[in-house]
């Protein structure tokens, strides 16, 4: 066999890691499969019963509540899972760095691709379930939804790249990142519409790129949806590009530190 090109080696490594990840997810983590669907369904059931209990009938303008919630939850989990599972990807594959072909960024990228696929399947299943229950949950602009979904995935990837290096350099931050996920869920407007917040607070909430991603995704999903004022695709993509560049640079700079046990 001749010497392989760097790209061939990288592709082999990604393929091998992907097959390994599939194997690990299908055999090891049975409850993981359950929670993948169970978590959003529990959220939806809780929120729907809460609304019924409180007797709130005020609708979200331009969208039905359940599909609105499904889109927000899966979109948010797409970013959150990328960050959370990305943090452990390097640690979990530490032994593999004995083979020089595998770099710390590889398990992270592969795991992210895997998470993106799984979350896409979750979205499709949830939408399917909603439709079966007689709720009109089909997207209005499929290409737009696709682009925004991809953007959210890239945002998760960029954040995961940065966070995975940072928590290896400062391990205490891992707890902080995990803790901040639930407040982030609320502040990203996943389960409560942000439209009701006063503008003075909204000004700060709009620093969060997930808000922009989710609102834009919903505006494509539901025709006539009243988007939060101040949301911009430009801002979202600035975050994506900066986090991707910064994350990759950090991985290049700290590769040795990440490999060390």
């Amino acid at each position: 066999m001749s010497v392989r090109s760097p790209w061939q080696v990288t592709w082999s490594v990604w393929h091998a890691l992907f097959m390994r990840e599939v194997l690990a997810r299908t055999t090891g983590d049975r409850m993981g499969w359950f929670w993948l669907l169970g978590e959003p369904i529990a959220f939806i059931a809780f929120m729907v019963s809460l609304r019924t209990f409180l007797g709130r009938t005020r609708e979200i303008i331009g969208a039905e509540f359940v599909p609105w919630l499904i889109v927000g939850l899966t979109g948010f989990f797409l970013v959150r899972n990328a960050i959370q599972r990305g943090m452990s990807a390097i640690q979990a594959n530490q032994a593999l760095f004995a083979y020089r072909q595998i770099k710390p960024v590889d398990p992270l990228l592969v795991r992210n691709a895997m998470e993106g696929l799984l979350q896409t399947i979750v979205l499709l299943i949830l939408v399917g379930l909603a439709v079966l229950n007689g709720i009109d949950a089909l997207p209005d602009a499929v290409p737009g939804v696709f682009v925004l979904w991809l953007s959210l995935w890239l945002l998760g990837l960029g954040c995961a790249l940065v966070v995975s290096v940072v928590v290896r350099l400062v391990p205490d931050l891992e707890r902080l990142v995990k803790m901040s996920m639930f407040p982030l869920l609320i502040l990203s407007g996943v389960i409560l519409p942000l439209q009701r917040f006063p503008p003075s607070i909204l000004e700060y909430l709009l620093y969060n790129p997930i808000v922009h991603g989710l609102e834009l995704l919903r505006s494509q999903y539901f025709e006539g949806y009243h988007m939060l004022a101040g949301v911009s695709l430009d801002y979202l993509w600035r975050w994506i590009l900066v986090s991707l560049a910064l994350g990759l640079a950090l991985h290049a700079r700290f590769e040795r530190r990440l490999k060390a046990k």
Partner: protein
Amino acid sequence: MIEVKHLYKRYHNQTRQSVDWLLKDVNFTLQKGVSLALIGRNGAGKSTLMRLIGGEDHPDRGEVIRRCRVSWPIGVAGGFQGSMTGRQNLKFLARVHGYTDRIKEVIDFMQDFSEIGKAFDEPIKTYSSGMRSRFAFGVSLAFEFDVYLSDEATATGDAAFKAKAKQVFHERLGKASVIMVSHEEQILRDLCQAALWLRKGEAPVWFDDVNEGLDAYNESVKRGSKGAAKQASQQTSARQAA
């Protein structure tokens, strides 16, 4: 061909004080088909140099350029995932090393070679240490490399397995070469052509002929131990005088 250029390596102690270089300005070019013996005393950096050549560790300065396929150190089991079966681990490595289309060949070789039978489909963490090392040894030989790295890699197992391992290894060396660390001089003389003598704190010495290298090394060890013996006797006489 492997080129090693101005290679420096040191390990830091816990207080992060700078320590002496373990490898200092190591330079050599290993031509295709030439096998190299790394010789030197304990702690001279033989295994470290091996890890650097294998890409398992990074040098502090300088570089290793590999213009051929270089193995990881033979028999190293550190990269296996204990919760996965032998077969799964092997498939993973086959894919990493570009054997995606020839996985079956690799698996057949391993089942035949490693003699672990049904345990091939059991998680690796359930293996006995003998099975584990037979498996690790087999995995290294399952793939074709241009240069194999062998750091004291002597196959474990019974006499029959050792004989088989030796035979397969020699077969591989027909097409490939090896960089080797071993305390068995005869193996080095049999398999290697060139030698690199690593000396602590001094520049390494290259020998085109492995026999010359080993002779020079043995000569220095003899002189060194005589010196040590002298020192020891001086100490005893000093104690006696006290």
